[in-house]
């Protein structure tokens, strides 16, 4: 191929990429770098008109951030949300996937659609509904009172608020993992199961020693996918608890949004970058997994 032809092809190729590159550069790369840059300055809401007149403050925002007990609380809350939420979501999703895997055709499709439905709904809207259910005299406590338990004021109790949000997140996200696990289960070759059965392994034994080890890549992929979402939890806290009571449901994303609201853009950027770093690490794991699957 001649040099001229090659140059022409390169031009055409970049022509195809132009709209994407323009938007992606302006609205994605610039803000990513901007956020990084702002986290090293004393940028506040007053500096919007003259963004380049702010002072470079080095790691001051990060020092302030980690000195702030509320930020440490936000990290703890986010970590709890992820560490408790992920295994719960995965267990329920796996139970559903196993139950559906043995079934056939239409019935499976029916249940799959039903359990997946919450995934497509707006978190804001379902948060409103769950807040209504979790009121002191809401549906949840009415149901508990039938078996003689008098339930707490879930969302205004600093012990129960976070677990309530976790249960709602599990409810909303199980569908995604169920689909991924079901696809994984259907790829497990039937003869492996038959061999294990011949060796006298029962159903539970087959699950623990054959199915789950074979599904390891799928399980890891699912865990990473969901954790990237859980690390950013925000809407639930915004609508249901306002981060409270006593910061019991204050997530890192919510903390960032609050600092933004206070006009502390530098601090908000630093907080978002700490979260970004964690998500990047988790994503890196995912990328590795995707690659090793191909």
């Amino acid at each position, binding site marked *: 191929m001649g040099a001229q032809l090659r140059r022409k092809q390169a031009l055409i190729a970049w022509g195809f990429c132009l709209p994407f590159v323009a938007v992606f550069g302006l609205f994605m790369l610039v803000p990513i770098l901007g956020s990084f840059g702002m986290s090293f300055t004393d940028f506040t809401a007053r500096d919007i008109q003259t963004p380049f007149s702010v002072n470079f403050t080095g790691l001051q925002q990060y020092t302030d951030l980690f000195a702030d007990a509320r930020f440490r609380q936000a990290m703890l809350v986010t970590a709890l949300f992820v560490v408790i939420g992920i295994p719960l979501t995965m267990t329920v999703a796996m139970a559903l996937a196993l139950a559906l895997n043995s079934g056939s055709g239409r019935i499976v499709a029916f249940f799959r659609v039903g359990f997946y439905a919450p995934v497509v709904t707006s978190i804001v809207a379902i948060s409103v509904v769950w807040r209504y259910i979790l009121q002191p005299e809401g549906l949840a406590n009415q149901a508990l009172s039938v078996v003689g338990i008098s339930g707490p004021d879930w969302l205004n109790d600093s012990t129960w608020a976070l677990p309530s949000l976790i249960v709602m997140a599990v409810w909303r996200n199980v569908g995604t993992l169920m689909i991924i696990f079901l696809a994984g289960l259907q790829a497990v070759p039937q003869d492996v199961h038959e061999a294990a059965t011949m060796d006298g392994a029962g159903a539970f034994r087959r699950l623990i020693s054959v199915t789950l080890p074979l599904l390891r890549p799928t399980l890891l992929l699912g865990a990473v996918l969901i954790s990237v979402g859980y690390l950013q939890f*925000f809407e639930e806290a915004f609508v249901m608890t306002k981060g409270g009571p006593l910061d019991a449901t204050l997530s890192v994303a919510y903390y960032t949004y609050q600092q933004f609201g206070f006009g502390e853009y530098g601090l908000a950027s630093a907080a978002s970058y700490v979260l970004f770093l964690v998500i990047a690490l988790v994503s890196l794991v995912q990328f590795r997994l995707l690659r090793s699957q191909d």
Partner: protein
Amino acid sequence: MPRRLTYGVLTIGLVAWLLPFVWMALGSFKNQGEILRRPPTWWPQTPTGENYSQWFGPLHFGTFFTNSLVVAGFTVLGNLVFCSMVGYALAKMDFPGKKLLFGAVMVTLMVPGVVTFVPLFVMVSKMGLLNSYAALILPFITAPLGVFLMRQFILGIPDALLEAARIDGAGEFRIFARIVMPLCGPPLATLGILTFLSSWNNFLWPLVAAQSEDRYTLPVALSLYSTGQNATNYGLLLAGSVLVIVPILLLFLALQRYFIQGVATTGLK
């Protein structure tokens, strides 16, 4: 476990699973007195459409709905066109900077909105675009995920097909529009659905970028009503939730095969 028992347990589980939706729908037809009654009633005793007529009347549901639809519509359209163009270039052409571009797409695949919204807000304010449709649409009009999806699919289209067209003298744009795009039905469906879903449910950015009622999208309007002076007017809030959830639920039921295939094949929400 015998199959019948499994289905029995699954059915009970599914009923419990969908109970929040049912409870939401029932509650949206109760008046404030009945919402507060203890013990609660199941079926609305005196069904009322008052909660809905409030949304359609003084609360400008139509505006919010239109805003959500306009934003989602343009976002989907932009993604379908622009992402497939880049996907084609990345999959089937050679050009300097290709590796760099693809690398940038992959690296930013998982960048959360919480990282970009502060500088984005500053930028959009400086551009004078705050509280405009452009501010709600432009940042999402292309996305790395779409580029990745389209590239992966177009890689699988045989080169021979494109070569044949090239020999016939077709230009790259013609090949893209007449040969590649018509083959891209499945990934375009997946991308369209995923994009519509995330736009319809998007919250953080519209919350900061839309600053007056005439630009609110549905989730923003609902969240502000639910945390403002109407915070305990559950009849109204539940009706609002129904109005946000039902359109997307109907879309999901109509296209559920594509939704589920999309999740299973991409492994991405």
